[in-house]
């Protein structure tokens, strides 16, 4: 049967790829291994996302900074002149909340459309598909870091010190955000291949989530009311939204109400909690996020083989 000339084979990779109808042999471990082996591709696709996002614009990367800056100016004008609140350093509070909420919402949005939006790649070349939602999240981390630089400029401008000793908690909050966004992103990316409603539905959910998370208002407004009505043990209900521990931690560290004059701290009594309170709540949020990630990876694996047919 062998009719091919026995020409020497150039030494090359000795990888063996096995393709079968059966997807169960892909364990979680092998899924992560596959992504790790292709980390170069992950980095390159992330770079591509970041580059391509502003490729045809004049000021390019500066949009990443301008966008949150303008948003902050608008909200600040509205909430200090039109509907005046009493929050001191409102722009800083807003920017710190918006940075981390924005990280969550933009990366989730990008991840949800990452497979359906890259059909040209998915239909032509095989690579671990998990890389698509992952690079969507990673590219938004780059945007996030640029936004944090604006926050730093703001802190310097107001000469307001962040809570230095709690900085690691802010980093943990960002990490939890990424895990949660990746987990949900994998689920939604899968769903969006089969139901294009997903992305529209997600817009609504993210909008609702924005107003149910203390981005513009303060955590105290909601939590104090709940405690007054139902008792202190019911504060947990509020914390079920994993974004609330994330956003409050980030605000606590960067807006740092503890460094405000004592008479201005009244609105932040519930946020002036010890590190352990933040750590506990972030820990719970992390567990929820990690479970989401595992479920996301498994669901993604389960349906990944049908992507090409449905795109």
């Amino acid at each position, binding site marked *: 049967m062998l*009719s*091919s000339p026995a020409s020497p084979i150039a030494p*090359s990779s000795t990888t*063996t790829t*096995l393709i079968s109808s059966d997807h169960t042999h892909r364990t979680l471990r092998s899924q992560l291994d596959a992504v790790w082996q292709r980390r170069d591709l992950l980095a390159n696709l992330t770079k591509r996302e970041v*580059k391509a996002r502003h490729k045809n614009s004049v000021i390019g990367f500066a949009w990443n900074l301008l966008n949150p800056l303008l948003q902050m100016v608008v909200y600040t004008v509205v909430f200090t002149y039109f509907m005046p609140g009493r929050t001191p350093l409102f722009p800083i509070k807003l920017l710190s909340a918006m940075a981390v909420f924005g990280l969550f919402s933009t990366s989730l949005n990008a991840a949800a459309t990452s497979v359906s939006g890259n059909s040209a790649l998915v239909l*032509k070349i095989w690579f671990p598909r998990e890389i698509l939602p992952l690079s969507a999240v990673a590219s938004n981390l780059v945007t996030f870091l640029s936004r944090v630089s604006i926050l730093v400029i703001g802190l310097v401008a107001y000469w307001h010190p962040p809570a230095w000793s709690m900085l690691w908690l802010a980093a943990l909050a960002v990490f939890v955000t990424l895990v949660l966004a990746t987990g949900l992103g994998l689920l939604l990316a899968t769903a969006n291949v089969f139901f294009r409603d997903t992305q529209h539905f997600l817009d609504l959910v993210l909008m609702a989530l924005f107003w149910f998370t203390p981005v513009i208002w303060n955590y105290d407004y909601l939590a104090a009311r709940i405690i007054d009505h139902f008792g202190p043990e019911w504060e947990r209900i509020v914390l079920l939204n994993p974004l609330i521990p994330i956003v409050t931690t980030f605000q606590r560290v960067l807006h740092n109400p503890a460094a405000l004059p004592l008479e201005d701290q009244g609105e932040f009594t519930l946020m002036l909690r010890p590190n352990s309170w933040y750590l506990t709540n972030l820990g719970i949020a992390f567990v929820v996020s990690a479970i989401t990630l595992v479920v996301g990876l498994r669901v993604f694996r389960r349906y990944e083989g049908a992507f090409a047919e*449905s795109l």
Partner: protein
Amino acid sequence: MQKRPPSIDTNMPPSGDGDIAIALRHISKQFNTGTTPDKTLKERLILRRPGRSSTILNAVEDVTFDVYKGETFGILGHNGSGKSTLLKMIAGIMRPSSGTIRVEGRLAALLELGAGFHPDLSGRENIFLNGSILDLDRTYVESVYDEIVDFAELDEFIDMQVRHYSSGMRARLGFSVATHLQPDVLLVDEVLAVGDENFQQKCMHRVDQFRSSGRTMVLVSHSASRVGQMCNRVAVFDRGQLLFVGKPQEAIENYREALENRRLARGANYATIETSSDQPDERNDPVRLVDGAIGTGDKPTFAPRDDVPLWVDLDVDEEIDFRLRLVLRNPEGQTLVNRSTMSMANNPFRLPRGTHRVHFTLRDLPLRPGPYNLVVFAESPDGNTRLDLPCRLGKLRVEGRLRGVGHLAVDIDHRIEPRPTNDLTTATRSTDQDTEPVSAPLASSPSR
């Protein structure tokens, strides 16, 4: 890359079997084609009627074969035969419904040239991105970068965004990238016909280089001649089934046979005249072809280079100038002969009213064995107006044995002698690469 699972199909040859590049075992693929795929939840949940049945299409059915290392393997099939689906499964893009595929080594697929390029990035950025998708490290891509750009003839455009590239430029870049990145296995889906003639030549040359470097190539096409020219072995597909695996020339015969059967199955009845199809009364042609046949016996079967006689009957209602045109095609639809009676006799026909029979003889028809279709129709002397619907005279069969894969049965003799010392003349030798060095006529006599 997926790791080998602990439990593996027992029919699989053991991994590390040095000769096999791609092993397919009992591959099947079904598509659910009940309706167009529903893309929104509303359609899926609300509009889903309980009794709605879905049709299962067997795109590929129980296919098993091996592709050996270093060979160029052709997959031949008409549109919808499942050949592209199979290629997508080998590429890992689609998961088979059942069965197992094992691919040894790094694989790259050219399923559509220029695909996988990001339009917002420059050609340069896309080359590196593509390299990274194919799992190559940057230093390697850097080392072949100049060659890629050179080959694609894109030097001055390489920093331009790919969205501004013409489709030809994209195709050239895609081809260049895929073949320079040296995968162990290259899958190619009917894309070699890109660019101008010049570039196609380059592509063919490049593919030859790729093959001679001992790498494996799988070429999917519906063009028998292309596959025949390039492949060591060929698999023929028809309606999702593997009909044949083996030598190109036999494969091509199988393929042409399958095409012909398909045409017959579609209900095209060659022995009839198309005029009689729908509304014969509405057509009031001055000249009508009413009947015709090839050959003299009941089976129009010939040997290569036989004379082929045929006749047509005409009804002439009006004494006008006209000419007849004969068109001979192979099953792939390529026109092999297309001549009018004007070019034979220099004068248009002008026949009195009544019925006439015209006899033709196609002399020494040098066709390779296979089925062919012959059509005759009447047209105005300038060829601009067709006077009648074409009369399909039906299938003409050439039988016999022929080595080689081209369209024509041509005797080729050769002799070998010392090269003349005079530099201006070059040695005469056979250039047909498919032939073995025998001095007998290559197209042997029919084996009827």
